[in-house]
């Protein structure tokens, strides 16, 4: 438990859970894992299994926003928003932890969770896809768009800070 509780809690908090929701979902996750230990398939990562239980537990508390617009922005437009084709200096704020956390918070839930799982928590592509209930190709597409959006949000933040 001690090996994973902080990471699971961090993941839950990154999904817009209030502190109370994150604590409740954390408890439900470990209780659910305890009760469901017999259903654990030994081949998969135990850590990934816990993250998937936690994600489902939070979803019961924190219903997905309905009517959220589909992502219709093309990859090319996302790339340009993220700075492709500009001659600006590299993003200095990448180094600033507070800024990076703030910008990550500005992303939609689906974008934030794929970045947190794959990049921050270091799950493999297959594990991340399993936790999210996606195929690997769909996960990769979501991850790429999410990273571009994060980069675009950083640029936007820098532009505002320097205005």
């Amino acid at each position, binding site marked *: *438990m001690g090996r994973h509780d902080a990471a699971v809690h961090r993941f839950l908090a990154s999904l817009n859970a209030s502190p109370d929701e994150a604590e409740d979902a954390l408890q439900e996750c470990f209780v659910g894992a305890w009760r469901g230990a017999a259903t654990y398939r030994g081949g998969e990562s135990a850590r990934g299994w816990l993250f998937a239980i936690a994600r489902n537990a939070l979803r019961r508390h924190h219903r997905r926003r309905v009517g959220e617009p589909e992502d219709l922005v093309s990859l*090319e437009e996302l790339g340009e928003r993220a700075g492709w084709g500009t001659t600006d200096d590299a*993003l200095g704020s*990448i180094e600033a932890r507070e800024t*990076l956390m703030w910008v990550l918070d500005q992303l939609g839930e689906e974008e934030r969770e794929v970045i947190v799982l794959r990049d*921050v928590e270091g799950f493999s592509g297959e594990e991340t896809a399993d936790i999210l209930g996606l195929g690997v190709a769909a996960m990769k597409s979501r991850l790429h768009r999410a*990273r571009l959006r*994060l980069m675009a949000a950083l640029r936007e933040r820098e532009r505002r800070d320097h205005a």
Partner: protein
Amino acid sequence: MPDLNRVVAGLSCRDVLKVLSEYVDGELPAETVARVRAHLQECDHCERFGGTFGSLVSRLRGGATAAGDLDPDARRKLAERMRAEWMREGRE
């Protein structure tokens, strides 16, 4: 704005933009990696953009956003809940 359809070293900038995450994650076949590298060497726009993109991913992976340990109060409540669950199971 420069043209994303511009072809350099056999790949368009659009093609490179599309595979940048897989390139950074080391998930492309060797032949495609070589083509992307050749494009990046000759295309300033993609080289600059790809460098920043790669730095961002490295920064995320380097623990830039990782917080510390679990709050002691949350850990205590979790332990209490698990103990209660264990006791309940034992009674059943």
